[in-house]
């Protein structure tokens, strides 16, 4: 019975992976634009980066390859490195000015 349920809810079309990936990328971009808190912006960024992994999984299912999954491992590691650097920068910003919102860091005018 459980196997039947899993088969029923498993993704049938490969396109659904891409739709999910694009929705996550869109949520990530939208969050980066509307959110004010610096850490939330970093979280949105991670969401956008991780949407790539879902696209890779979909591609691999479509072509029955493993190259995409290896690529996804690299993306996960790089996203972690970027998050670490980003958190470090946020901590040093906070130490210097107690700033935790984007509308407090507007000294440089784009």
């Amino acid at each position, binding site marked *: 019975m459980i196997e039947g349920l899993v088969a029923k809810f498993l993704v049938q079309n490969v396109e659904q992976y891409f739709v999910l990936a694009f929705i996550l990328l869109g949520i990530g971009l939208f969050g980066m634009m509307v959110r004010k808190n610096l850490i939330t912006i970093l979280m949105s960024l991670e969401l956008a980066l991780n949407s*790539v992994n879902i696209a890779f999984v979909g*591609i691999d299912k479509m072509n029955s*390859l493993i190259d995409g999954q290896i*690529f996804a491992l690299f993306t996960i590691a790089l996203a972690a490195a970027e998050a670490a650097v*980003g958190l470090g920068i946020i901590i040093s910003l906070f130490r210097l000015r107690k700033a935790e919102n984007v509308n407090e860091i507007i000294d440089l005018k784009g």
Partner: protein
Amino acid sequence: MKALYPDIIVIVGIIALILIELVLPSFDLIGFLGFLISLVSGFLAIKYSLEGYTFSKWLLDISAFSLLLKGIIYILSAFVIFTSVSFFKSKKTFLENVYTFLLIALGLSIMISSKNLVVILSGLELASISMYIAVGMLKDDYVSKEASFKYLVLGSMATAFFGLGSAFYIGATSHLDIISVSVNHNTAFALASLFLFVAFALKVSAAPFHFWTPDAYEGAPTSTTAFISTVPKIGFYAVIFLLASYVFPIINNFSYIVGIVGVLSMFWGNLVAYAQNSAKRMLAYSSIGHAGYFLIGFSKYNVLSVSSTMFYVIVYAFATAGAFLVLSILEKNENWTHDMNNYKALYKKNPFLATALGLFLFALIGIPPFATFVGKLGIFLGLVNSNAWFFAILFIIGSIIAAGYYLKLIVYMFFKEPVTEEDQSLPLSLFDTIGVSVFLISVFFFGVFPNVLFDIILKDMFHG
């Protein structure tokens, strides 16, 4: 195997520098060793490139052309490190600056030594993450951290786009290498090339994606600006050349997308540069304008325009690094902001620096004795050869518009009266003089004898 030696030297050198720094934390020593490592591997790479060594095993594919670019990247890094050590000593920065530069150069070098998307991503991110860190390296300086955060957020978006582009590339072609493929009107392939192009347009600060550029360049320590505005460009344009030779020509009319992004960024950068009061921001907008020229050069795949764009990127890197390094030497003085008024009568205060900055600015305009003129001429002739008259004429108009703001700074330096009457001459150390002279001589040399570099580029660029 010999083609790998330059990178191995740099990897071992970086680890050695980290260990030496624990025992002997001295800026002079670390700076000198970093300069030496970078210079030795740079000359070795150029020597092997001329002797025709190649290496293609595992995921790597090092051609003579990528060895040449590696050599130029390392030599340029060596002289930027050489000139910036005294700047870092005068500011409150970290000792890690030197090998952060080497890490950026190493990442770029890995990026251009493969056609595999995984290796390109790894090198790109090694360079990019090191760049985010390098921008925020000024101790107790708020603006530097803010610039670093903005650069990180927008730069990581480029990574996400690169990943999506690679996903669609694998989907359309079933392999990870950028080699010539045959796909007909494949939507996945079109999306792949669009995403990959957007990722690199963001990295080279072309116009709709340029918003991080003025902030990151202004907030960074000025020597770091000299580094991140020039050396990474060589690597990024090498990858754009790879895309322009294998990916873009497959899609109908993709050259118009590249060309229109180029035209947009040329006009945006060159027009907004007039509104800037700070010389550092003005040079940042000038680099957006130059991204426009280079993308127009890559829009049509034509032997003349593509090879002269690569030549132009290299000599532009020398000229811009020189200009930013002169700004960094000036910034060592007390109370120096990069406001235009500070540059009034600079010629009376320090004739050498004023002349050097003036010559670099003339080089960026593209006045004939300088090497950049050869690049501009080549791009124009290449566009005319491939009947792209529209882009050729816009390219000339954009270049003429650009001349004005460089001349404004030159007029401020040479013909304006100083704000205060007191005579304050600015000091200049021997190392700074040598460093700036190296950049000045190379810009002159490649302008008078462009064939020295241009022949090698033409010989190697299209065989690999």
